[in-house]
């Protein structure tokens, strides 16, 4: 049984009192989530009693560290339904995972036709992407002369697939799209885009940084080619991210970072590379961080991702209702809890109709009530440009949030309107 009060006890920071006696109301999990004791103590225990470098273990600590690190890979593979544990590549965050794939294209070392990119070739993203799924592709386009194109976003905050057949065409090498928007909350439906990508022989990548933490995600069912996500948003530690990719593609890609662990044999003038996943894990990996992420997915699995999703859906409906009643509050993103997650962005005016800058909203919420929201463009500036606003206020919900906290937010926003009235 999902019991949010019990869950909250696992997260020490949630019972913290901020200066001035403000209880913490953490509504910024879309930015980064808090960590349960189960994760924190797993990391602490490993650091204190079992730590060593992994991979080339010929001693007890090395064997323990390696086992824990590779067990984490198993746990994560199972968590996202990867057909093979070898397809789980540990990176430092989702951004590295996205860059890793982007750097595989147009690399003179790449021999596989699918990764050749030059002038005339096209890369397709969307207007609702996080900068981490925009800039790597811009850089790729600049390096190779390829053309970057993108899906538009509708006024309701959905992907505009009207020009799908034009956008994704025979020149397209890869389509990389966010699974759940970190601003709008929109969950994109993958299959129509994937079908078109397959039709024209393009590869498809999903930025699942905001979906894997919040709902059951199965890469086999999704059937795309690459999926990126990040540990710190899913009750795991910072410093660890994941790239899942199809074995066959990962094997066809050139190496990215060179160094220890990713090699098979090295001579001064040439090298051969280790099989996946190690081929893409150069140097000492984020060992304790991977182990922490393993503990995180164990924790989430223990609770059940279906229940996490259901809880967040209830909260989202409640929040859309409660915030929707605030006069002069405008949602940016879907107004109903259908095909959307618990990431709720909005703009706010005072009762005379003047804009209140999100910076001011966020700071007063924190100052006065200890409510943590994110304000700004949330690393999705083009999306804000599209809506003609410099910034929004964003409340993002997670398994440990409550309707009381949403009530507190609503009260806080009324107060903000008074302060800047």
């Amino acid at each position, binding site marked *: 049984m999902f019991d949010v009060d019990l869950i909250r006890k696992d997260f020490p920071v949630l019972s913290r009192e901020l200066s*001035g006696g403000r209880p913490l109301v953490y509504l910024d999990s879309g930015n980064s989530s808090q960590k349960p004791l189960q994760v924190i103590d797993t990391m602490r225990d490993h650091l204190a009693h079992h730590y060593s470098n992994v991979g080339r273990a010929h001693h007890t600590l090395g064997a323990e560290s390696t086992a824990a690190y590779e067990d984490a890979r198993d746990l994560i593979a199972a968590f996202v339904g990867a057909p093979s544990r070898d397809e789980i590549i540990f990176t430092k965050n989702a951004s590295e995972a996205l860059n890793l794939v982007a750097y595989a294209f147009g690399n003179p070392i790449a021999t596989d036709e699918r990764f050749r990119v030059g002038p005339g070739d096209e890369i397709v993203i969307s207007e609702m992407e996080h900068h981490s799924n925009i800039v790597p592709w811009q850089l790729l386009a600049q390096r190779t002369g390829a053309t970057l194109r993108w899906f538009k976003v509708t006024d309701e905050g959905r992907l505009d697939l009207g020009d799908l057949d034009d956008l994704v065409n025979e020149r397209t090498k890869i389509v990389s799209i966010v699974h759940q928007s970190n601003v709008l909350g929109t969950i994109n439906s993958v299959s129509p885009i994937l079908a078109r990508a397959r039709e024209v022989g393009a590869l498809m990548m999903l930025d699942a940084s905001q979906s894997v933490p919040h709902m059951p995600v199965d890469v086999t069912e999704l059937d795309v080619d690459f999926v990126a996500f990040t540990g710190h948003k899913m009750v795991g530690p910072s410093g660890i991210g994941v790239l899942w990719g199809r074995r066959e593609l990962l094997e066809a890609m050139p190496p990215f970072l060179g160094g220890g662990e990713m090699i098979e044999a090295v001579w001064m003038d040439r090298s051969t590379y280790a099989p996946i996943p190690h081929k893409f894990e150069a140097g000492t990996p984020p060992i304790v961080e991977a182990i922490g992420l393993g503990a995180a997915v164990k924790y989430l699995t223990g609770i059940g991702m279906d229940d996490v999703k259901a809880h967040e859906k209830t909260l989202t409906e409640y929040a859309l209702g409660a915030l929707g009643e605030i006069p002069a509050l405008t949602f940016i993103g879907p107004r109903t809890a259908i095909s959307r997650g618990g990431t709720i962005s909005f703009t706010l005016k005072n009762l005379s109709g003047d804009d209140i*800058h999100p910076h*001011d909203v966020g700071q007063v919420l924190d100052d006065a009530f200890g409510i943590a929201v994110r304000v*700004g*463009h949330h690393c999705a500036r083009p999306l804000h440009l599209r809506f003609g606003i410099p*910034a929004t206020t964003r409340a993002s919900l997670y398994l440990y949030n409550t309707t009381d906290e949403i009530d507190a937010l609503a009260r806080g926003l009324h107060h903000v309107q008074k*302060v800047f009235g």
Partner: protein
Amino acid sequence: MIAESMYQELILEHYKHPQGRGLRDPFDAEVHHVNPTCGDEITLRVKVDEGKVLDVSYEGQGCSISQAAASVLHELATGSTVEESLGVVDEFTRLMQGRGQVEADEDVLGDAVAFAGVAKYPARVKCALLSWMAYKDAVVRSA
């Protein structure tokens, strides 16, 4: 509201009743500065005569911090000497970039000391500095 709040009464006052707002003639230099990360903007003019700041006029948009900072700047700079005012700019910059660990010199800063709480929030420091950097730029160009 807690004691160390960033939102000093004075900041809100300046935000709601900005001093010297509006672009005025005559002027020696006009600059336009933008904070690309949050979209705050300011257009600022200075009129200088024999080392004295005769007017600082401006127009802009952004959060209360950036707007109030421009208003306070107007008050402090107008009527002082260029040299004095640049001294205040330097002290204000030092305070803002001190990550909350720098003791503000109230004698130099006057009302601008109300912004001390901003220094703890790196993302807000640029808001506070926007108009002040624009002023420095404008003064250099007016020379």
